[in-house]
């Protein structure tokens, strides 16, 4: 057990170290290296926070849904935690996406929220769905049933995402800037490099947080199990 815990700690620590190096580098690039955008000026720099955070959120939700499917397939309780933790982090990163998106909307369009934006509205629906996931999880007693119900609901999100994208497109009113098109990224090399560094920093931060939280939750489960055993022997 000690070896496994040690290995986990090492992975978490190394992920945190990578994040600790990449984050200041990305911040330096965003504020001192990349040039101002021609149309939006200095305020466009929030793009380097907003888009990587949103992409990290989607990655976390995808990882959570994948582990939910694996849990239903195998019944391995360890996968339940590996599904729950990215969902939890996804909601935190999702909140940051909504906040940074709102700030950008206010600066660019003069409004905190624009209901005609496909991306904003799709993200809002998905965010509400993942908030509901927590309501379900915390209202069922811990155990195998909770793991199963959480996994089923998490998988429903896989159906909800394309359905929501389509629904929002039906009432589309394009205003949201489209940076990534079929023909590649719509930005110059400097901007692309800064964006990729910011994305790498955000992803490494998410991985570090994931590993640390996973380790904490596992320890919590072990303590609960030992406490139950101790109460049983009294």
């Amino acid at each position, binding site marked *: 057990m000690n070896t496994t815990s040690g290995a986990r700690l090492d992975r978490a620590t190394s992920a945190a170290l990578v994040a600790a190096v990449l984050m200041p580098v990305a911040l330096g690039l965003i504020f001192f290296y990349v040039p101002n955008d021609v149309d939006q000026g200095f305020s466009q720099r929030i793009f380097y926070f907003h888009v990587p955070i949103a992409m990290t959120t989607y990655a976390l939700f995808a990882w959570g849904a994948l582990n939910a499917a694996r849990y*239903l397939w195998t019944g391995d309780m360890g996968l339940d935690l590996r599904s729950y933790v990215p969902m939890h982090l996804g909601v935190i990163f999702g909140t940051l996406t909504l906040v940074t998106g709102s700030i950008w909307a206010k600066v660019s369009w003069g409004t905190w929220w624009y209901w005609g934006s496909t991306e904003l509205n799709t993200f809002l*629906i*998905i965010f*509400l*769905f993942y908030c*509901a996931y927590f*309501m*379900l999880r915390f*209202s*069922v007693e811990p155990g195998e*049933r909770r793991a*199963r*119900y959480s*996994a*089923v*609901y998490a*998988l*429903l999100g896989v*159906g*909800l995402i*394309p*359905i*929501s994208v*389509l*629904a*929002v497109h*039906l*009432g589309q009113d394009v205003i949201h800037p489209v940076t990534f098109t079929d023909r590649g990224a719509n930005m110059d090399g400097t901007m692309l490099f800064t964006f990729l560094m910011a994305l790498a920093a955000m992803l490494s931060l998410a991985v570090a947080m994931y590993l640390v939280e996973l380790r904490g939750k596992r320890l919590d489960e072990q303590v609960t199990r030992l406490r139950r055993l101790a109460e049983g022997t009294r």
Partner: protein
Amino acid sequence: MSRRALVALVRKDLVLELRGSEVVLAMVAFVVASFVLFRFGLGGGRPAGGTRAATGMLWVAIVFTAMLALTRSFAREREHGIWDGLLAAPIDRALLWLARACSTCIFLVAVQVVALPAFWLFFLQDGPAPDYGVLVAAVLLADVGIAALGSLVAGLASAGRAREVLLPVLFLPFAIPLVLGAVSATTGTISPQTSGLHTLERLGYLGLYDTVFVLFGWGLFEFVVED
């Protein structure tokens, strides 16, 4: 065997409803009261936003009314211990979901037989109205989606604490794209410039929504009733 079991399960739900009148009457009263509330909420004599706002309100009322049926879904089985008997029966678990989805859909249609004329009376009789054929088609397609997804989500909510509160929280994020598609289909027909293709595309979207969540319900319900 499967078909007989399905018919027997749906018949059970309908007979229980006919004897007890627990759900449908409450839904009718709720939806009509909602229309009155919306009418006054939109300004009484001359509704603000006109037919477009009213049609949007119709979809909100339909979703909230469906909540009543879904809240009672599985509650009776859990309260009276019927669930154990159903699980012991030698039938596919997915059939339990399908039967519940079918009976919920029948309840919704029964309510809308009263609700849609009431909606016409309160909102549409004066001024421009959506295409009634499209409205009815959209309502029926939406009913299938609500019943299919709602029966699965109601199964999840039924095991939680405070399930009456939990169900709307779990269901409403899924209702948003449904309402978006349905509003787009029906309000689009108010404008005379809307093409038939536009309407067909919107109705097709509702059909896709139904297909996706029927597949999810069929595939995932066995994990909801494993114990």
